[in-house]
């Protein structure tokens, strides 16, 4: 079942002669448990699509539904609550708070949502443990490597049973080994039932997705077909 749906979504910035059509008539749905990558060049509208999907911006026209609920009918506070409770964000530059430890960074969104500090820290530690970061819990961001910082950011994005993960070039600042580790974690979150969108220009990253959607000048121009099983693919390889 689709957890996220964008129906005929368009976004226009500016007016009259200075108008920029950042997104045009986007139709996109993401099921729970599935990972969709959105690929496109710089300026194709990828990040705008993500901010609209995550209710950080409103579309100029069209409708966004998260968990079966149309965002059009939600108040500003309602959207903020939805973001705190259901949506996790991962950014290229991690966006961790420098003055907080890894554990505090992960527990913060739960505490902001009114969960007691003690319960929030227990949940945050569980999330860090799931990403093999228990021994880094008390470290501050500047004491962590780039790969560890992004793993903390993903732990924060999935903590508390969030259902939708939105990632913007999540491994853009990492080497290929750490980039693969990040994608494995995002995929693992999907296998636990989250719906996820990763926007990227990087085909290596996008290739972890169940489906890749291609964006060009604010329009979806193409998408991949479902792939065959690993065994069937190996069996079909041409013989040398």
């Amino acid at each position, binding site marked *: 079942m689709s957890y996220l749906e964008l129906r005929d979504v368009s976004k226009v910035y500016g007016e009259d002669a200075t108008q920029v059509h950042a997104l045009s008539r986007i139709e996109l749905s993401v099921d729970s448990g599935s990972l969709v990558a959105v690929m496109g060049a710089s300026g194709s509208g990828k990040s705008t699509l993500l901010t609209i999907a995550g209710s950080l911006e409103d579309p100029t026209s069209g409708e966004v539904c998260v968990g079966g609920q149309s965002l059009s009918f939600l108040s500003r506070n309602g959207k903020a609550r939805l973001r705190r409770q259901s949506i996790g964000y991962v950014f290229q530059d991690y966006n961790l708070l420098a003055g907080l430890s890894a554990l505090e960074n992960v527990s913060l969104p739960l505490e902001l949502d009114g969960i007691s500090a003690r319960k929030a820290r227990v949940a945050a530690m569980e999330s860090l443990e799931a990403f093999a970061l228990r021994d880094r819990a008390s470290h501050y961001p500047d004491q962590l490597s780039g790969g560890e910082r992004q793993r903390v950011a993903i732990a924060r994005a999935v903590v508390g049973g969030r259902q939708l993960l939105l990632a913007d070039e999540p491994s853009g600042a990492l080497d290929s080994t750490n980039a693969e580790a990040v994608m494995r974690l995002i995929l693992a979150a999907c296998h636990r039932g989250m719906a996820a969108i990763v926007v990227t220009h990087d085909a290596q990253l996008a290739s972890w997705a169940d489906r890749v959607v291609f964006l060009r000048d604010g329009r979806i121009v193409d998408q991949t077909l479902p*792939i065959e099983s690993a065994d069937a693919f190996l069996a079909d390889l041409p013989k040398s």
Partner: protein
Amino acid sequence: MSIRHALLALLSEGPKYGLQLRQEFESRTGEVWPLNVGQVYTTLQRLERDGLIEADDVADVSPQKGFHITQEGAEELAQWLRTPPDYSSPPRDELVIKVLVALELPGVDVHEVVQVHRRYLVELMQQWTRLKEDESRLDLNFALVVDAELFRLDSLIRWLDTADGRLKRAAAGVDAPASQSFPLPKARRRVGAPQ
């Protein structure tokens, strides 16, 4: 892919017979490059003819006939390992040719042609990446083969992305004309040639 040298490498570990060589070649390349028995025996005959391997028992013609590497074979293997493949001249890449042809043909949207190939390559990368998902089946050799294939496909997609952007800028008059010819360097040092 040099089956000849791969077989020499396997024989450098100790004497082996034909079927065993085939099985070990396939398992060590993650079953990605299957070999038929005919190829194995044809290659072994040539290696024997060239003095790089010897049969354990020349009278024995059964599939269990063993082979071992000679001193010349070991030297050939060592030399091959250290000789870089010839990357000095651009291959006549079919993908590049298709995009260049699309650019010249009237009525063809080159961006659409680029996208057809981009999607196909991304789908192929999804297949290879899927093989990496199950870490239990990902032994070291297989992981290296899969990574190599992913980087190869990725480089093609990066070229398509770059070409797409370059064509777009050229159409907008920002870049040099797309049809401008580019001279290739005339003299190239042959890889592996004496200095």
